[in-house]
């Protein structure tokens, strides 16, 4: 690994590996993997919330009210699951190439999506109310 002191022991004729092939700290890989898994769990939580809203919640007085709240949550969960993998891959490429990690827009999408659904649920609950 990246111990500067070990370079003195290396033979002089040993070729310097190109930057893209240099070994990087495995902990960074593990951290990236855990971040991916955390996004997957967030995605599963959104899908479950959407499923619970459409299947278990009492119906709103507005037709399709439960779907208005539940379907965007499920779609958001699917988007997050795909993007979590793409983000993991982008981070891996950046780490291997010794480049700064790419900016992730997943937190913004999640925050805006959940906020919109919450506002929709609030309006439906307050204005239309539940059917029974």
């Amino acid at each position: 690994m990246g111990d500067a002191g070990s370079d003195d022991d290396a033979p002089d004729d040993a070729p310097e590996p190109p930057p893209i092939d240099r070994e990087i700290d495995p902990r960074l890989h593990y951290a990236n993997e855990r971040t991916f898994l955390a996004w997957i769990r967030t995605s599963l939580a959104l899908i479950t919330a959407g499923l619970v809203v459409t299947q278990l919640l009492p119906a709103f007085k507005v037709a399709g009210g439960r779907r208005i709240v539940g379907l965007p949550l499920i779609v958001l969960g699917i988007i997050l699951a795909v993007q979590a993998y793409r983000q993991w891959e982008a981070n891996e490429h950046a780490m291997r190439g010794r480049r700064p990690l790419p900016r992730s827009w997943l937190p913004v999408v999640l925050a805006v999506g959940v906020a919109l659904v919450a506002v929709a649920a609030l309006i439906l609950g307050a204005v239309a109310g539940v059917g029974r």
Partner: protein
Amino acid sequence: MSDPGVGDDDLILVGDADLILVGDADLILDGDLERTEFAWVRSGLALAVIGLLLLKRLLPLVGHRVAQGFIIIGLGLAFAAIGVAFERHRRHRELPSRSALKLVSLATVVIGVAALVLAVVSTA
């Protein structure tokens, strides 16, 4: 995060200012590996529970009881195979493979699409 080039008997600051003496950098790596394993276990459990919840709703749509049994057995075997594969992966302390993560992402998307179909076609 501490310096990757840590040597023997280095002092390392970990977590909430707990100062520990580390004789081997592998200890830190083991901790990271363990946290990652727990993350895999939590994700696996979440995936299995949600899959089961979904299956409970979707199976009645299949109708035939023998077909329902085959679906459950098939999914159980698939989960067991994935578990064995990950355990072998962990024993060799390999870095995560692209296909493993792709599989988890794909499984989540499949569950999401199934949930979407269920939400559209049937509302309890």
